[in-house]
């Protein structure tokens, strides 16, 4: 990176550290912070969407749809989330390969589950055995994202289901009195008003989502936990020009500080958002704002 880094043995102190922290391996660590942010950026809206439709399904008038929504919400109850994560990653992978197998290799007669093996034809492998490395990584990452979205979608559905019920009944009745249909009342009256009730739960969920990101490591993605373990381990001078002892403790301390700052910043931001959303609402928050202004 820097010019003076060409001879690491002669360095010491801060210059050594600045060279050490800019090696290609460390760049991978910094990129993996980006992976975490990318995961959050994709998962948050997708699970919000899942949650919205889950909650809407749980309130549906069509009975099987309601059962589906309720079952989806109940999925998260009582089961450790890590188990859900570990389960969904394999289950989704197998579901994809199974479907592709059925479509692409109709002539195949052998069973897919042979004892302890899961065998699909070569054309159904996902991603294909010949695919480049980045495809494998992207596929693994998207499986992880989808898993996160399913699990957090169920949490979000739970929050939004509560929020939809918290919208005062009189509001819907008024909408009906104005001649709106069920659908219109839902989209024009309930949905705009539910957010202020959903926000405390959703902001809690956001914090939890941030704190769940290190679990990416368990899903086989090379994330910050992976790199912190890799880079922190003892390095001898045979393998690197920057030998050091076991520094994993310090790397994880760094991660700890990163997460603390991240959650703190989110907290402050969400507080502001709540204040903005409460404006003009028929809640105690909105009422106290009105009084303060008057």
């Amino acid at each position: 990176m820097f010019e003076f880094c060409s001879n690491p043995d002669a360095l010491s102190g801060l210059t050594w550290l600045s060279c050490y922290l800019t090696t290609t391996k460390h760049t991978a660590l910094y990129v993996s912070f980006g992976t975490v942010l990318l995961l959050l950026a994709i998962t948050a809206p997708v699970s919000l969407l899942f949650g919205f439709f889950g909650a809407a399904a749980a309130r549906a008038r069509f009975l099987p749809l309601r059962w589906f929504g309720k079952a989806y919400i109940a999925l998260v109850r009582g089961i450790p989330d890590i188990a859900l994560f570990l389960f969904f990653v394999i289950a989704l992978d197998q579901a994809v390969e199974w479907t592709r197998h059925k479509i692409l290799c109709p002539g195949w007669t052998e069973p897919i589950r042979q004892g302890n093996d899961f065998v699909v034809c070569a054309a159904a492998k996902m991603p294909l055995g010949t695919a480049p490395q980045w495809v494998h990584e992207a596929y693994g990452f998207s499986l992880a994202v989808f898993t996160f979205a399913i699990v957090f979608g169920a949490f979000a559905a739970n929050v939004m289901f509560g929020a939809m019920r918290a919208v005062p009944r009189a509001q819907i009745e008024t909408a009906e009195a104005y001649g709106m249909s069920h659908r219109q009342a839902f989209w024009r009256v309930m949905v705009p008003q539910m957010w202020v009730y959903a926000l405390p739960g959703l902001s809690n969920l956001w914090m939890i989502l941030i704190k769940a990101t290190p679990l990416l490591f368990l899903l086989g993605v090379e994330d910050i936990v992976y790199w912190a373990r890799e880079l922190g381990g003892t390095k001898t001078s045979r393998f690197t020009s920057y030998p050091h002892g076991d520094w994993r403790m310090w790397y994880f301390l760094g991660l700890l500080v990163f997460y603390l700052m991240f959650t703190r910043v989110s907290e402050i931001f969400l507080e502001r958002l709540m204040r903005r959303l409460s404006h003009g609402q028929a809640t105690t928050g909105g009422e106290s704002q009105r009084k303060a202004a008057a």
Partner: protein
Amino acid sequence: MSCWETIQAYGLRSLGIGERLLPREDYNLCQQFTLIGSGLIWNIYFGVLALAAGFFFANALALAKSTRSPWLRKPAEWFIFVFRGSPLFVQFFFGYFLFLSLKGVYPIFSPFTAAWLGALIVLFLNTSAYTAEIFYGALRSIPKGDVEAADAYGFSGYPRFRRIVWPTMLRLAWPAYTNEAIFLFHATTLVFFSGFPAWQQRGDALYYANFFADKTFNPFVPYPILAGYFITLTLIIVSIFGLFNRYLNRHLPQEARRKLKIRMNVIR
């Protein structure tokens, strides 16, 4: 091997009693049920001890956070912030490597690098912080009238705290605390995935479930078994805490007693 023999061989496998080798082939349902159930011993061990010890520390922390003196308040606030603001998973890793480094300097720390002590300490500190926040919130929402009535009866200082403030705090905090307890038990599944080694393959329920899923490449059997065990465990916790809840609210008329409403929490 009949199922009864399997239970004899593997029922206490997670503690190192019984068959030394884990099953190698033809994994049957009985083996999966037995081993995953055997691993559950660790989950219960971590959960019960961390919860019991954390309860006392959380009380102290909550009180420290609500005092006016900054010498007590600031450390408590920081402690709670650090443990609630960062992922438990990273805390486990950090704790493990911290103990590992300490072990290099002072050999007395070698038991801390084993899960039974090291992970227990991390869980204890973590649940203390979460519980302290719950108790702190409850302390702040004690009805003003209760305290005024205590004053009118001549209570003050420690007797007032012991007889009026503390029981009311527990009463208010109990539903959230039940949630925290359930959640702590779920969090114990992280232990063996976060650096702490499962020595001689003595792991917890998720460790064995993962073992079977890896070996059979079929997640559809071990994980539902695990889920079944945890749902049962959750129900047991809810009913035990429900009994305490009844005890705490025994002065209220039957109708006025608040049913324990469990609002599920998620990952920490």
